[in-house]
Protein backbone atom coordinates (compact mmCIF):
# COMPACT_ATOMS: atom_id res chain seq x y z
CA UNK A 1 0.00 0.00 0.00
CA UNK A 2 1.38 3.40 -0.84
CA UNK A 3 1.39 5.80 2.08
CA UNK A 4 -0.21 9.21 1.67
CA UNK A 5 2.59 11.29 0.30
CA UNK A 6 1.70 14.95 0.46
CA UNK A 7 -0.10 15.61 3.67
CA UNK A 8 0.85 14.38 7.06
CA UNK A 9 -1.03 11.14 7.62
CA UNK A 10 -4.63 12.12 8.11
CA UNK A 11 -6.39 11.88 11.42
CA UNK A 12 -9.08 9.78 9.81
CA UNK A 13 -8.96 6.08 10.49
CA UNK A 14 -7.96 4.10 7.46
CA UNK A 15 -10.27 1.49 6.00
CA UNK A 16 -12.38 0.26 8.88
CA UNK A 17 -14.51 2.64 10.88
CA UNK A 18 -12.59 2.49 14.10
CA UNK A 19 -12.04 5.46 16.33
CA UNK A 20 -8.60 6.98 16.02
CA UNK A 21 -6.37 6.09 18.90
CA UNK A 22 -2.91 7.39 19.22
CA UNK A 23 -0.76 4.41 18.41
CA UNK A 24 1.38 2.94 21.13
CA UNK A 25 4.55 4.02 19.41
CA UNK A 26 3.30 7.59 19.18
CA UNK A 27 2.13 7.72 22.78
CA UNK A 28 5.48 6.52 24.03
CA UNK A 29 7.44 8.91 21.96
CA UNK A 30 8.33 11.98 23.94
CA UNK A 31 9.84 13.60 20.87
CA UNK A 32 6.67 13.15 18.87
CA UNK A 33 4.51 14.49 21.72
CA UNK A 34 6.79 17.52 21.82
CA UNK A 35 6.37 17.96 18.09
CA UNK A 36 2.61 17.89 18.46
CA UNK A 37 2.82 20.33 21.35
CA UNK A 38 5.05 22.64 19.33
CA UNK A 39 2.48 22.54 16.53
CA UNK A 40 -0.53 23.04 18.80
CA UNK A 41 -2.76 25.66 17.20
CA UNK A 42 -3.56 27.13 20.63
CA UNK A 43 0.10 27.73 21.31
CA UNK A 44 1.16 31.38 21.04
CA UNK A 45 2.65 32.03 17.59
CA UNK A 46 5.60 34.35 17.12
CA UNK A 47 3.34 37.36 16.56
CA UNK A 48 1.45 36.59 19.78
CA UNK A 49 4.69 36.60 21.75
CA UNK A 50 5.86 39.75 19.99
CA UNK A 51 2.67 41.62 20.84
CA UNK A 52 2.98 40.59 24.48
CA UNK A 53 6.68 41.39 24.84
CA UNK A 54 7.26 44.39 22.56
CA UNK A 55 5.44 47.70 22.14
CA UNK A 56 5.02 50.37 19.46
CA UNK A 57 5.29 48.00 16.51
CA UNK A 58 5.64 49.58 13.10
CA UNK A 59 5.97 47.20 10.19
CA UNK A 60 8.45 47.52 7.33
CA UNK A 61 7.40 45.89 4.07
CA UNK A 62 8.89 44.55 0.87
CA UNK A 63 12.18 43.16 -0.44
CA UNK A 64 12.61 45.89 -3.11
CA UNK A 65 13.05 43.20 -5.77
CA UNK A 66 9.92 41.22 -6.21
CA UNK A 67 7.20 41.44 -3.58
CA UNK A 68 6.20 41.79 0.03
CA UNK A 69 5.96 38.38 1.63
CA UNK A 70 3.11 38.32 4.15
CA UNK A 71 4.58 35.20 5.77
CA UNK A 72 7.52 37.25 7.06
CA UNK A 73 7.08 40.35 9.13
CA UNK A 74 9.72 42.90 10.11
CA UNK A 75 8.89 45.70 12.52
CA UNK A 76 10.51 48.55 14.35
CA UNK A 77 9.55 48.04 17.96
CA UNK A 78 10.37 48.98 21.52
CA UNK A 79 11.67 46.49 24.06
CA UNK A 80 11.27 47.99 27.54
CA UNK A 81 11.48 51.37 25.88
CA UNK A 82 14.57 50.57 23.82
CA UNK A 83 14.44 50.82 20.00
CA UNK A 84 14.86 47.36 18.45
CA UNK A 85 13.98 45.41 15.33
CA UNK A 86 11.75 42.33 15.51
CA UNK A 87 11.47 39.81 12.71
CA UNK A 88 9.36 36.69 12.60
CA UNK A 89 7.46 34.47 10.29
CA UNK A 90 3.67 34.79 10.48
CA UNK A 91 1.31 31.85 10.89
CA UNK A 92 -2.45 31.87 10.53
CA UNK A 93 -5.01 29.93 12.49
CA UNK A 94 -7.93 29.95 10.07
CA UNK A 95 -8.04 28.50 6.59
CA UNK A 96 -8.20 31.96 5.08
CA UNK A 97 -5.18 33.11 7.06
CA UNK A 98 -3.29 29.93 6.34
CA UNK A 99 -3.67 30.65 2.64
CA UNK A 100 -2.73 34.28 3.07
CA UNK A 101 0.35 33.52 5.17
CA UNK A 102 1.21 30.37 3.24
CA UNK A 103 1.04 28.21 6.39
CA UNK A 104 3.79 30.33 7.86
CA UNK A 105 6.30 29.37 5.19
CA UNK A 106 8.22 32.36 3.86
CA UNK A 107 9.15 32.72 0.22
CA UNK A 108 12.57 33.89 -1.00
CA UNK A 109 11.36 37.51 -0.97
CA UNK A 110 10.55 37.03 2.71
CA UNK A 111 14.13 36.10 3.55
CA UNK A 112 15.40 38.94 1.38
CA UNK A 113 13.09 41.41 3.10
CA UNK A 114 14.35 40.21 6.47
CA UNK A 115 17.94 40.74 5.40
CA UNK A 116 17.24 44.16 3.94
CA UNK A 117 15.60 45.28 7.16
CA UNK A 118 18.36 43.76 9.32
CA UNK A 119 20.82 45.97 7.45
CA UNK A 120 18.71 49.00 8.33
CA UNK A 121 18.90 47.99 11.99
CA UNK A 122 22.64 47.49 11.65
CA UNK A 123 23.08 50.94 10.13
CA UNK A 124 21.33 52.55 13.09
CA UNK A 125 22.79 50.29 15.73
CA UNK A 126 19.55 48.64 16.86
CA UNK A 127 19.50 45.12 18.33
CA UNK A 128 17.65 42.48 16.34
CA UNK A 129 15.24 39.89 17.70
CA UNK A 130 13.98 37.09 15.49
CA UNK A 131 11.22 34.61 16.32
CA UNK A 132 10.81 31.36 14.45
CA UNK A 133 7.95 28.92 14.16
CA UNK A 134 7.92 27.29 10.77
CA UNK A 135 7.81 23.80 9.37
CA UNK A 136 10.58 24.23 6.85
CA UNK A 137 11.23 25.48 3.39
CA UNK A 138 8.39 26.33 1.08
CA UNK A 139 8.26 23.57 -1.52
CA UNK A 140 6.93 25.55 -4.46
CA UNK A 141 7.71 26.26 -8.07
CA UNK A 142 7.96 30.02 -7.64
CA UNK A 143 10.17 29.74 -4.58
CA UNK A 144 12.65 27.64 -6.56
CA UNK A 145 12.53 29.93 -9.59
CA UNK A 146 13.33 32.90 -7.42
CA UNK A 147 16.25 31.17 -5.75
CA UNK A 148 15.11 30.05 -2.34
CA UNK A 149 18.46 28.36 -1.70
CA UNK A 150 20.38 31.51 -2.50
CA UNK A 151 18.09 33.66 -0.35
CA UNK A 152 18.60 31.43 2.69
CA UNK A 153 22.34 31.09 2.06
CA UNK A 154 22.74 34.85 1.82
CA UNK A 155 20.98 35.33 5.15
CA UNK A 156 23.28 32.82 6.85
CA UNK A 157 26.35 34.61 5.57
CA UNK A 158 25.17 38.13 6.30
CA UNK A 159 23.70 37.36 9.71
CA UNK A 160 27.02 35.91 10.79
CA UNK A 161 28.62 39.36 10.43
CA UNK A 162 25.87 41.79 11.44
CA UNK A 163 27.46 44.32 13.77
CA UNK A 164 24.49 44.68 16.13
CA UNK A 165 23.41 42.26 18.89
CA UNK A 166 21.17 39.50 17.55
CA UNK A 167 18.94 37.11 19.49
CA UNK A 168 16.96 34.38 17.75
CA UNK A 169 14.22 32.39 19.47
CA UNK A 170 12.61 29.20 18.20
CA UNK A 171 9.13 29.44 19.72
CA UNK A 172 7.47 26.43 18.06
CA UNK A 173 8.92 24.47 15.20
CA UNK A 174 12.37 25.29 13.93
CA UNK A 175 12.34 23.57 10.57
CA UNK A 176 15.60 23.19 8.63
CA UNK A 177 17.13 25.92 6.47
CA UNK A 178 14.04 28.10 6.64
CA UNK A 179 14.48 28.42 10.40
CA UNK A 180 18.25 28.73 10.29
CA UNK A 181 17.92 31.66 7.87
CA UNK A 182 16.76 33.72 10.88
CA UNK A 183 18.88 31.97 13.49
CA UNK A 184 22.55 32.72 12.90
CA UNK A 185 22.61 34.95 15.95
CA UNK A 186 24.71 35.85 18.99
CA UNK A 187 22.22 33.98 21.10
CA UNK A 188 19.89 31.26 19.88
CA UNK A 189 17.13 30.40 22.35
CA UNK A 190 14.54 27.70 22.24
CA UNK A 191 11.30 27.46 24.15
CA UNK A 192 11.07 24.42 26.38
CA UNK A 193 8.46 22.71 24.21
CA UNK A 194 9.81 23.86 20.89
CA UNK A 195 11.52 21.52 18.43
CA UNK A 196 14.46 22.32 16.19
CA UNK A 197 15.31 19.92 13.41
CA UNK A 198 17.11 19.46 10.13
CA UNK A 199 13.96 17.94 8.57
CA UNK A 200 10.36 17.40 9.65
CA UNK A 201 9.64 13.98 11.20
CA UNK A 202 7.27 13.31 8.29
CA UNK A 203 9.93 14.17 5.74
CA UNK A 204 12.51 12.01 7.47
CA UNK A 205 10.08 9.10 7.80
CA UNK A 206 9.11 9.18 4.15
CA UNK A 207 12.75 9.21 3.07
CA UNK A 208 14.28 6.74 5.54
CA UNK A 209 11.33 4.42 6.16
CA UNK A 210 9.50 5.24 2.91
CA UNK A 211 6.42 5.68 5.06
CA UNK A 212 5.38 9.05 6.46
CA UNK A 213 3.36 7.39 9.22
CA UNK A 214 6.61 6.39 10.92
CA UNK A 215 6.88 10.03 11.95
CA UNK A 216 6.95 9.27 15.68
CA UNK A 217 9.94 6.99 15.23
CA UNK A 218 11.58 9.59 13.06
CA UNK A 219 10.99 12.33 15.63
CA UNK A 220 12.57 10.12 18.27
CA UNK A 221 15.55 9.27 16.07
CA UNK A 222 16.15 12.90 15.06
CA UNK A 223 16.36 14.11 18.70
CA UNK A 224 14.58 17.39 18.13
CA UNK A 225 13.50 18.43 21.63
CA UNK A 226 14.95 21.47 23.38
CA UNK A 227 16.73 19.20 25.85
CA UNK A 228 18.43 17.19 23.10
CA UNK A 229 19.34 20.22 20.99
CA UNK A 230 20.72 21.98 24.06
CA UNK A 231 22.76 18.89 24.99
CA UNK A 232 24.30 18.90 21.54
CA UNK A 233 25.22 22.54 21.99
CA UNK A 234 23.22 23.76 19.01
CA UNK A 235 21.28 26.39 20.99
CA UNK A 236 22.52 28.67 23.75
CA UNK A 237 19.63 28.62 26.19
CA UNK A 238 16.22 27.08 26.80
CA UNK A 239 13.32 29.32 27.83
CA UNK A 240 11.08 27.60 30.37
CA UNK A 241 7.34 27.42 29.82
CA UNK A 242 4.46 27.33 32.31
CA UNK A 243 3.43 23.82 33.40
CA UNK A 244 1.71 21.99 30.56
CA UNK A 245 3.00 24.35 27.89
CA UNK A 246 2.81 27.96 26.74
CA UNK A 247 -0.74 27.58 25.41
CA UNK A 248 -2.13 27.03 28.93
CA UNK A 249 -0.87 30.38 30.18
CA UNK A 250 0.38 32.60 27.36
CA UNK A 251 0.94 35.60 29.62
CA UNK A 252 3.20 33.67 31.92
CA UNK A 253 5.03 32.22 28.92
CA UNK A 254 5.58 35.71 27.55
CA UNK A 255 6.94 36.90 30.90
CA UNK A 256 9.37 34.00 31.02
CA UNK A 257 10.49 34.78 27.49
CA UNK A 258 10.83 38.47 28.30
CA UNK A 259 13.05 37.66 31.25
CA UNK A 260 15.44 35.57 29.16
CA UNK A 261 15.53 38.08 26.32
CA UNK A 262 16.32 40.90 28.75
CA UNK A 263 19.09 38.92 30.38
CA UNK A 264 20.74 37.96 27.09
CA UNK A 265 20.41 41.41 25.58
CA UNK A 266 22.06 42.98 28.61
CA UNK A 267 24.90 40.50 28.37
CA UNK A 268 25.41 41.22 24.70
CA UNK A 269 25.28 44.97 25.21
CA UNK A 270 28.00 44.71 27.83
CA UNK A 271 30.37 43.33 25.17
CA UNK A 272 32.27 45.41 22.64
CA UNK A 273 31.21 44.97 19.03
CA UNK A 274 34.51 43.28 18.17
CA UNK A 275 34.28 40.87 21.08
CA UNK A 276 30.68 40.05 20.26
CA UNK A 277 31.42 39.40 16.59
CA UNK A 278 34.43 37.29 17.48
CA UNK A 279 32.35 35.28 19.94
CA UNK A 280 29.65 34.72 17.33
CA UNK A 281 32.23 33.60 14.77
CA UNK A 282 33.87 31.28 17.28
CA UNK A 283 30.56 29.81 18.32
CA UNK A 284 29.54 28.88 14.80
CA UNK A 285 33.03 27.79 13.82
CA UNK A 286 33.07 25.29 16.67
CA UNK A 287 29.42 24.27 16.68
CA UNK A 288 28.35 20.64 16.32
CA UNK A 289 31.78 19.03 16.17
CA UNK A 290 31.01 15.35 16.13
CA UNK A 291 34.04 13.64 14.70
CA UNK A 292 37.16 11.84 15.67
CA UNK A 293 40.53 12.48 14.17
Amino acid at each position, binding site marked *: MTPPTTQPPSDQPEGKAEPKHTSAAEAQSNAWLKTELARNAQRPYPMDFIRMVFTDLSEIHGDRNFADDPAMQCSMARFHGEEVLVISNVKGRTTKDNVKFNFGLPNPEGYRKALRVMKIAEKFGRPIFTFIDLLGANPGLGAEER*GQGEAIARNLLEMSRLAVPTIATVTGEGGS*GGALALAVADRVLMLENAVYSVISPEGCASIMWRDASKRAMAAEALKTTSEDVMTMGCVDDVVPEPPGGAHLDPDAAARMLDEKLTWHLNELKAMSTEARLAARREKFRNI*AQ*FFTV
Partner: protein
Amino acid sequence: MAWFKRQDNEIENSSPEKRVRTEGLWVKCEGCDQYIFKADLDNNQQVCPKCGQHHKIDARCRVANLLEPGYELVDLELKSTDPLNFYDVKSYKSRLAKAQQATGLNDAIVNAVGRLGTHDVVLSVMEYAFIGGSMGSVVGETIARAVDRSLESRRPLIIISASGGARMMEGIASLMQLAKISSGLAQLDDAGVPYISVLTDPTTGGVTASFAMLGDLNIAEPGALIGFAGPRVIEQTIRQKLPEGFQRSEFLLEHGMLDAVVPRQELKPYIDRALSFMTAAT
Protein backbone atom coordinates in the same frame (compact mmCIF):
# COMPACT_ATOMS: atom_id res chain seq x y z
CA MET B 1 16.73 -45.62 -21.52
CA ALA B 2 18.53 -42.41 -21.35
CA TRP B 3 19.81 -42.52 -24.87
CA PHE B 4 19.28 -38.79 -25.34
CA LYS B 5 21.14 -37.84 -22.22
CA ARG B 6 24.73 -36.97 -22.86
CA GLN B 7 27.04 -38.24 -20.25
CA ASP B 8 29.94 -35.92 -20.89
CA ASN B 9 28.15 -32.68 -21.50
CA GLU B 10 30.70 -30.47 -19.91
CA ILE B 11 32.06 -28.03 -22.42
CA GLU B 12 35.23 -26.97 -20.87
CA ASN B 13 37.55 -24.20 -21.73
CA SER B 14 40.78 -25.42 -20.34
CA SER B 15 42.75 -22.19 -20.62
CA PRO B 16 41.17 -19.26 -18.77
CA GLU B 17 43.17 -16.68 -20.71
CA LYS B 18 41.30 -17.58 -23.86
CA ARG B 19 38.12 -16.15 -22.41
CA VAL B 20 37.08 -12.77 -23.68
CA ARG B 21 35.56 -10.77 -20.90
CA THR B 22 33.17 -8.10 -22.02
CA GLU B 23 31.51 -7.21 -18.73
CA GLY B 24 32.26 -3.68 -17.66
CA LEU B 25 33.82 -2.71 -20.97
CA TRP B 26 30.71 -0.98 -22.23
CA VAL B 27 28.32 1.29 -20.43
CA LYS B 28 24.99 2.67 -21.45
CA CYS B 29 24.79 6.45 -21.51
CA GLU B 30 21.88 7.86 -19.49
CA GLY B 31 21.61 10.75 -21.90
CA CYS B 32 21.44 9.12 -25.34
CA ASP B 33 20.84 5.47 -24.41
CA GLN B 34 23.78 4.47 -26.59
CA TYR B 35 26.48 2.06 -25.57
CA ILE B 36 29.81 3.69 -25.08
CA PHE B 37 33.21 2.12 -24.69
CA LYS B 38 34.03 2.65 -21.03
CA ALA B 39 37.62 3.63 -21.76
CA ASP B 40 36.32 6.44 -23.97
CA LEU B 41 34.19 7.70 -21.10
CA ASP B 42 37.12 7.50 -18.68
CA ASN B 43 39.35 9.41 -21.06
CA ASN B 44 36.71 12.09 -21.47
CA GLN B 45 36.20 12.90 -17.76
CA GLN B 46 32.99 10.80 -17.75
CA VAL B 47 31.35 13.00 -20.36
CA CYS B 48 29.56 11.03 -23.10
CA PRO B 49 31.50 11.55 -26.35
CA LYS B 50 28.27 11.14 -28.32
CA CYS B 51 25.75 13.37 -26.56
CA GLY B 52 27.78 15.35 -24.02
CA GLN B 53 25.89 13.94 -21.04
CA HIS B 54 27.86 14.60 -17.84
CA HIS B 55 28.04 11.39 -15.84
CA LYS B 56 28.95 11.41 -12.16
CA ILE B 57 32.63 11.43 -11.43
CA ASP B 58 34.33 10.58 -8.17
CA ALA B 59 35.90 13.25 -6.03
CA ARG B 60 39.51 12.16 -6.39
CA CYS B 61 39.27 12.05 -10.19
CA ARG B 62 37.94 15.59 -10.11
CA VAL B 63 40.89 16.75 -8.09
CA ALA B 64 43.24 15.04 -10.53
CA ASN B 65 41.44 16.62 -13.48
CA LEU B 66 41.63 20.14 -12.09
CA LEU B 67 44.96 20.35 -10.31
CA GLU B 68 48.46 20.03 -11.72
CA PRO B 69 50.39 16.93 -10.67
CA GLY B 70 52.03 17.34 -7.29
CA TYR B 71 48.87 18.39 -5.44
CA GLU B 72 48.26 17.14 -1.94
CA LEU B 73 45.06 15.61 -0.48
CA VAL B 74 44.48 16.92 3.04
CA ASP B 75 42.03 16.75 5.98
CA LEU B 76 41.06 13.16 5.17
CA GLU B 77 41.34 11.83 8.71
CA LEU B 78 38.02 12.96 10.25
CA LYS B 79 35.33 10.38 11.02
CA SER B 80 31.76 10.86 12.22
CA THR B 81 30.94 9.84 15.79
CA ASP B 82 27.23 9.28 15.08
CA PRO B 83 26.04 11.86 17.63
CA LEU B 84 22.39 10.73 17.61
CA ASN B 85 23.12 7.01 17.60
CA PHE B 86 20.75 7.12 14.67
CA TYR B 87 18.81 4.10 13.61
CA ASP B 88 16.16 3.84 10.92
CA VAL B 89 15.81 0.57 9.04
CA LYS B 90 19.58 0.26 9.32
CA SER B 91 21.96 1.86 11.74
CA TYR B 92 23.82 4.95 10.63
CA LYS B 93 27.05 3.29 11.77
CA SER B 94 26.51 0.44 9.31
CA ARG B 95 25.67 2.91 6.53
CA LEU B 96 28.89 4.76 7.29
CA ALA B 97 30.95 1.58 7.32
CA LYS B 98 29.49 0.47 4.00
CA ALA B 99 30.10 3.84 2.37
CA GLN B 100 33.63 3.96 3.74
CA GLN B 101 34.35 0.57 2.28
CA ALA B 102 32.80 1.42 -1.07
CA THR B 103 34.53 4.75 -1.55
CA GLY B 104 37.73 4.37 0.43
CA LEU B 105 37.00 7.71 2.07
CA ASN B 106 36.05 8.52 5.66
CA ASP B 107 33.24 10.80 4.57
CA ALA B 108 31.72 12.54 1.55
CA ILE B 109 34.47 15.09 1.05
CA VAL B 110 38.05 15.50 -0.16
CA ASN B 111 40.19 18.58 0.43
CA ALA B 112 43.23 19.30 -1.69
CA VAL B 113 45.85 22.01 -1.99
CA GLY B 114 47.70 22.51 -5.21
CA ARG B 115 48.03 24.47 -8.37
CA LEU B 116 45.24 25.05 -10.87
CA GLY B 117 46.74 26.41 -14.07
CA THR B 118 48.65 29.44 -12.89
CA HIS B 119 47.09 29.76 -9.44
CA ASP B 120 47.70 28.14 -6.07
CA VAL B 121 44.30 27.11 -4.75
CA VAL B 122 42.47 25.27 -1.99
CA LEU B 123 40.03 22.79 -3.47
CA SER B 124 37.23 20.98 -1.68
CA VAL B 125 35.27 18.32 -3.56
CA MET B 126 32.16 16.48 -2.41
CA GLU B 127 31.78 12.75 -3.06
CA TYR B 128 28.24 11.88 -4.12
CA ALA B 129 28.84 8.14 -3.83
CA PHE B 130 29.19 8.53 -0.06
CA ILE B 131 25.60 8.54 1.35
CA GLY B 132 24.44 10.85 -1.42
CA GLY B 133 27.13 13.40 -0.69
CA SER B 134 25.16 14.41 2.36
CA MET B 135 26.65 16.91 4.79
CA GLY B 136 27.13 15.98 8.42
CA SER B 137 29.66 17.13 10.99
CA VAL B 138 32.62 15.74 9.10
CA VAL B 139 31.76 17.29 5.75
CA GLY B 140 30.98 20.57 7.50
CA GLU B 141 34.22 20.60 9.43
CA THR B 142 36.30 19.55 6.43
CA ILE B 143 34.90 22.36 4.32
CA ALA B 144 35.35 24.77 7.23
CA ARG B 145 39.00 23.68 7.34
CA ALA B 146 39.32 24.37 3.63
CA VAL B 147 37.94 27.86 4.31
CA ASP B 148 40.47 28.27 7.16
CA ARG B 149 43.32 27.21 4.87
CA SER B 150 42.14 29.67 2.30
CA LEU B 151 41.92 32.48 4.85
CA GLU B 152 45.39 31.78 6.24
CA SER B 153 47.17 31.39 2.93
CA ARG B 154 44.98 33.82 0.96
CA ARG B 155 44.77 31.15 -1.73
CA PRO B 156 41.48 31.18 -3.64
CA LEU B 157 38.91 28.61 -2.54
CA ILE B 158 37.04 26.34 -4.93
CA ILE B 159 34.27 24.07 -3.68
CA ILE B 160 32.73 21.48 -5.98
CA SER B 161 29.31 20.45 -4.71
CA ALA B 162 27.50 17.18 -5.33
CA SER B 163 25.08 16.55 -2.54
CA GLY B 164 21.55 15.66 -1.58
CA GLY B 165 21.76 18.16 1.28
CA ALA B 166 22.16 17.95 5.02
CA ARG B 167 22.69 14.46 6.47
CA MET B 168 19.55 13.80 8.46
CA MET B 169 21.21 10.96 10.36
CA GLU B 170 23.09 13.62 12.28
CA GLY B 171 19.94 15.67 12.91
CA ILE B 172 20.35 19.24 14.08
CA ALA B 173 24.14 18.91 14.05
CA SER B 174 24.08 18.68 10.26
CA LEU B 175 21.90 21.79 10.00
CA MET B 176 24.47 23.71 12.04
CA GLN B 177 27.11 22.94 9.41
CA LEU B 178 25.32 25.35 7.06
CA ALA B 179 25.85 28.13 9.58
CA LYS B 180 29.43 27.05 10.28
CA ILE B 181 30.53 27.18 6.65
CA SER B 182 28.52 30.28 5.75
CA SER B 183 30.02 32.27 8.59
CA GLY B 184 33.49 31.14 7.49
CA LEU B 185 32.73 32.32 3.98
CA ALA B 186 31.71 35.73 5.36
CA GLN B 187 35.23 36.07 6.75
CA LEU B 188 36.72 34.99 3.44
CA ASP B 189 34.58 37.62 1.74
CA ASP B 190 35.73 40.28 4.23
CA ALA B 191 39.33 39.28 3.55
CA GLY B 192 38.83 39.65 -0.20
CA VAL B 193 39.90 36.11 -1.00
CA PRO B 194 38.19 34.66 -4.11
CA TYR B 195 35.72 31.81 -3.73
CA ILE B 196 34.33 29.97 -6.74
CA SER B 197 31.46 27.53 -6.24
CA VAL B 198 30.98 24.79 -8.81
CA LEU B 199 27.61 23.05 -8.69
CA THR B 200 27.40 19.57 -10.19
CA ASP B 201 24.67 17.00 -10.52
CA PRO B 202 22.96 16.97 -8.05
CA THR B 203 23.24 19.93 -5.67
CA THR B 204 20.16 20.23 -3.48
CA GLY B 205 18.90 20.92 0.02
CA GLY B 206 21.12 22.45 2.64
CA VAL B 207 24.14 22.63 0.36
CA THR B 208 22.25 24.86 -2.08
CA ALA B 209 21.00 26.88 0.88
CA SER B 210 24.53 27.61 2.04
CA PHE B 211 27.99 27.54 0.49
CA ALA B 212 27.04 26.36 -3.01
CA MET B 213 25.18 29.61 -3.67
CA LEU B 214 27.66 31.91 -1.93
CA GLY B 215 30.54 31.99 -4.40
CA ASP B 216 31.90 35.17 -5.90
CA LEU B 217 31.01 33.12 -8.95
CA ASN B 218 28.50 30.28 -8.88
CA ILE B 219 28.99 28.09 -11.94
CA ALA B 220 27.44 24.76 -12.83
CA GLU B 221 28.01 21.81 -15.12
CA PRO B 222 25.42 21.35 -17.88
CA GLY B 223 22.23 19.52 -16.99
CA ALA B 224 22.90 19.37 -13.26
CA LEU B 225 19.93 19.19 -10.90
CA ILE B 226 20.15 22.23 -8.63
CA GLY B 227 17.50 23.29 -6.16
CA PHE B 228 16.54 23.65 -2.54
CA ALA B 229 13.40 21.54 -2.27
CA GLY B 230 13.68 18.32 -4.25
CA PRO B 231 11.57 17.98 -7.42
CA ARG B 232 9.62 15.02 -6.01
CA VAL B 233 8.66 16.96 -2.89
CA ILE B 234 7.46 19.88 -5.01
CA GLU B 235 5.52 17.59 -7.33
CA GLN B 236 3.80 15.94 -4.40
CA THR B 237 2.99 19.28 -2.80
CA ILE B 238 1.65 21.16 -5.80
CA ARG B 239 0.22 17.98 -7.34
CA GLN B 240 1.23 18.68 -10.88
CA LYS B 241 4.04 17.65 -13.20
CA LEU B 242 6.99 19.96 -13.19
CA PRO B 243 8.00 21.57 -16.46
CA GLU B 244 10.74 19.95 -18.53
CA GLY B 245 14.18 21.03 -17.40
CA PHE B 246 12.94 22.49 -14.11
CA GLN B 247 15.80 22.95 -11.61
CA ARG B 248 18.44 22.09 -14.20
CA SER B 249 21.53 24.27 -14.66
CA GLU B 250 20.15 25.93 -17.78
CA PHE B 251 16.89 26.74 -15.95
CA LEU B 252 18.82 28.41 -13.15
CA LEU B 253 20.97 30.32 -15.60
CA GLU B 254 17.83 31.59 -17.29
CA HIS B 255 16.42 32.70 -13.94
CA GLY B 256 19.56 34.58 -13.04
CA MET B 257 20.74 32.22 -10.31
CA LEU B 258 24.04 31.16 -11.92
CA ASP B 259 26.94 33.06 -13.42
CA ALA B 260 27.69 30.48 -16.08
CA VAL B 261 27.10 26.92 -17.20
CA VAL B 262 30.49 25.41 -18.02
CA PRO B 263 31.09 21.95 -19.55
CA ARG B 264 33.43 19.74 -17.57
CA GLN B 265 36.28 19.89 -20.08
CA GLU B 266 36.25 23.69 -19.97
CA LEU B 267 36.03 23.93 -16.20
CA LYS B 268 39.74 24.23 -15.57
CA PRO B 269 40.45 26.97 -18.14
CA TYR B 270 37.31 28.83 -17.00
CA ILE B 271 38.35 28.82 -13.33
CA ASP B 272 41.92 29.72 -14.23
CA ARG B 273 40.66 32.67 -16.24
CA ALA B 274 38.30 33.80 -13.47
CA LEU B 275 41.01 33.58 -10.83
CA SER B 276 43.28 35.78 -12.94
CA PHE B 277 40.48 38.35 -12.96
CA MET B 278 40.02 38.08 -9.22
CA THR B 279 43.61 38.07 -8.06
CA ALA B 280 45.44 40.33 -10.49
CA ALA B 281 44.33 43.59 -8.90
CA THR B 282 45.63 42.89 -5.40
